[in-house]
C-alpha cells in the first residue's frame, strides 16, 4: 500500500508541473466563458445551457486527462527507461495501481474544479443554485476512472500509445451507445433465437457501459435520482473497475517489459 500511495503522489505532482495540466485548465475556463456567452443568447434557459455545456466541458477535459496523464505519462516513463528502475523496487501490480490512483486524483481535481465553476456561473448568470452539479462531478469521476482502467489493460497488453488512445476513444464511444445498442439487439434477439439474446446480454456485461453514468438530462432538469439507481451504478463501477485492475495487474506480471 505504501508503494501505491508513493507512486500516486508522484503522478499527481508531475501532473501539476506539466504544461498540459495548466493548458487543460485554461481550455476549461475558455469553454465555460464561451458557454456563458452563448447562454446569454437564449431566453430564460441560461442556467440550463451553462450546466449542459459545462458538463460537456467536464467530459472533454476528463477524457483528455485519462489519455494524456493516464496513458501518455505511462508510455513516457517506459521510453525514458524509468519504468525499469521503478519495477526494480516495487511489485508490478503496485505500479499499475499507483499510476491508476494518481490519474484518478487528477480526474477528481478537474471534475470538482469544473463542477464548482459551473455552479458559480449558473448562480451568477442563470440565477439558479444547482447543488446537483456535484453529482455531475461524481459521475464524471466514475466514468473516467473506469476509462483509465480500460487504458491500463491495453497498456498491460503491450500495445502502443497511439493504438491505446484510439482504442480508448473507441471504447468511450461504444460505451456511450451501449444502452441503445443493447435495446436494439435485444429486439433482434427476441425475433431471432434465444442464443442471440444470451449472447447480447453476455456482451452487455463484458463491454463497458458508459451510458450508465450519463445523468446529464436529470442534472440539467434538477431531477432527483433514486438512491437505488445511484447505488447500483456505483456497484457496477466498482466491480468493473476492480476486474479491470485485476486483469491489468495479472497481465503486467506475465509480460516482458
Amino acid at each position, binding site marked *: 500500500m*505504501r*508503494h501505491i500511495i*508513493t507512486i500516486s503522489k*508522484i503522478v499527481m*505532482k*508531475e501532473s501539476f*508541473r*506539466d504544461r498540459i495540466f495548466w493548458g487543460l485548465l485554461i481550455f476549461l475556463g475558455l469553454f465555460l466563458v464561451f458557454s456563458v456567452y452563448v447562454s446569454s443568447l437564449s431566453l430564460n434557459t441560461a442556467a440550463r445551457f451553462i450546466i449542459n455545456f459545462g458538463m460537456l466541458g467536464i467530459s472533454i477535459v476528463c477524457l483528455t486527462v485519462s489519455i494524456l496523464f493516464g496513458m501518455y505519462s505511462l508510455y513516457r*516513463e517506459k521510453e*525514458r*527507461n*524509468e519504468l*525499469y*528502475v*521503478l*519495477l*526494480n*523496487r*516495487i*511489485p*508490478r501490480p503496485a505500479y499499475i495501481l499507483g499510476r491508476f490512483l494518481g490519474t484518478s486524483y487528477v480526474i477528481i481535481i478537474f471534475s470538482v474544479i469544473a463542477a464548482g465553476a459551473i455552479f458559480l456561473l449558473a448562480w451568477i448568470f442563470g440565477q439558479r443554485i444547482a447543488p446537483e452539479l456535484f453529482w455531475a462531478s461524481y459521475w464524471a469521476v466514475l466514468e473516467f476512472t473506469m476509462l483509465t482502467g480500460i487504458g491500463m489493460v491495453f497498456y498491460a497488453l503491450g500495445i502502443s500509445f497511439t493504438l491505446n488512445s484510439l482504442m480508448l476513444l473507441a471504447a468511450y464511444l461504444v460505451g456511450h451507445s451501449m444502452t441503445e445498442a443493447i435495446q436494439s439487439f435485444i429486439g433482434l434477439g427476441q425475433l431471432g433465437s434465444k442464443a442471440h439474446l444470451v449472447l447480447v446480454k453476455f456482451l452487455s456485461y463484458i463491454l463497458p457501459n458508459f451510458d450508465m453514468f450519463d445523468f446529464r438530462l436529470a442534472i440539467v432538469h434538477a431531477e432527483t435520482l433514486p438512491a437505488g439507481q445511484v447505488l447500483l451504478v456505483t456497484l457496477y463501477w466498482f466491480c468493473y473497475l476492480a476486474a479491470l485492475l485485476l486483469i491489468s495487474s495479472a497481465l*503486467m*506480471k*506475465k509480460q*516482458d*517489459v
Partner: protein
Amino acid sequence: MLNTENLTKTYKGREGAIHALDNLNLRVEDGEIFGLLGPNGAGKTTTVKMIMGFMAPTHGEIVFRDKKLAMAEPRPQFGYLPESFKPNPNLTVGEYLSFHNELAGSAVDPEQLDKQLRLVGMDRFKQRRVSDLSKGMGQRLGLAQAFAGDPDFLILDEPTSGLDPIGRSEVIDLLLSVNSQGKTIFFCSHILSEVERLCDRIGILVEGRLQFVGRVEEFLKKWQAENLDEGFRREVKCVTS
C-alpha cells in the same frame, strides 16, 4: 554470488527463431567488479533484463546467494541503472532522489539526501529541475538512485554513457570507491578502456554466446593483445567470420 544457469532467450522472428541468448552460465562473486562486454546485439541488455526479472528466460534460471530469483518480482537487493536512462523531468533532483529512497524504504532525512547527492557530485543541483540537467548530470542522478536503499550489489547497464571524459573518469573513481566498501558491481559497457581500468573479471558475449570469462590479463594473453580493445576486436572477428 550471482549465478545464471543455462540462461536462454529465444524470440520468434519472421524467419524462424532468434537466439538472443544461448545457454549463458555466468558467476559473479561477491565483492568483485564484473564487466560484460559485447558488440551491439550480443545479448548484454537481454541478460541484464532477465537478471532483473523484466524478461522471462525461455529456459534456465538465475540464482542469487543460493536463492532462485522469480520472474517479474522486484529486486530490492540490487541497485540498478538501465541503459539510456532519463529520470523524471518534472521533479527536482532532491525530490527525485527522495522518491526513490521512499520506494527503497530507506530514511530520507535531508542530511542523508545531501550525502547521497554529494557522492555523485550533484549536491549543488538539489533544487534544480531534472528537465534542466545535462545528459551527463542525468546519468549521475541515475547512479544516485541506484545507490538508494544502500544495496550491496549494483547492476549497471552502460553507466558512463553520455558522460564527457572527466565525468567518465569521476564515475569510474566512484565505482572503484563503492567497490572498496564491499559492494559488488556487474556492468555492461562498450568503453573498453574503462572496463580495463575497472574490472576484476570480464565476460565476452558475442551473438548470444559467452566466448570468454576470466581476468583481463588472461584475455589479453589469449589473444596476445596489448590492450582490451585489440583483443576484443580479434575475439569478435573470430566468432563472426
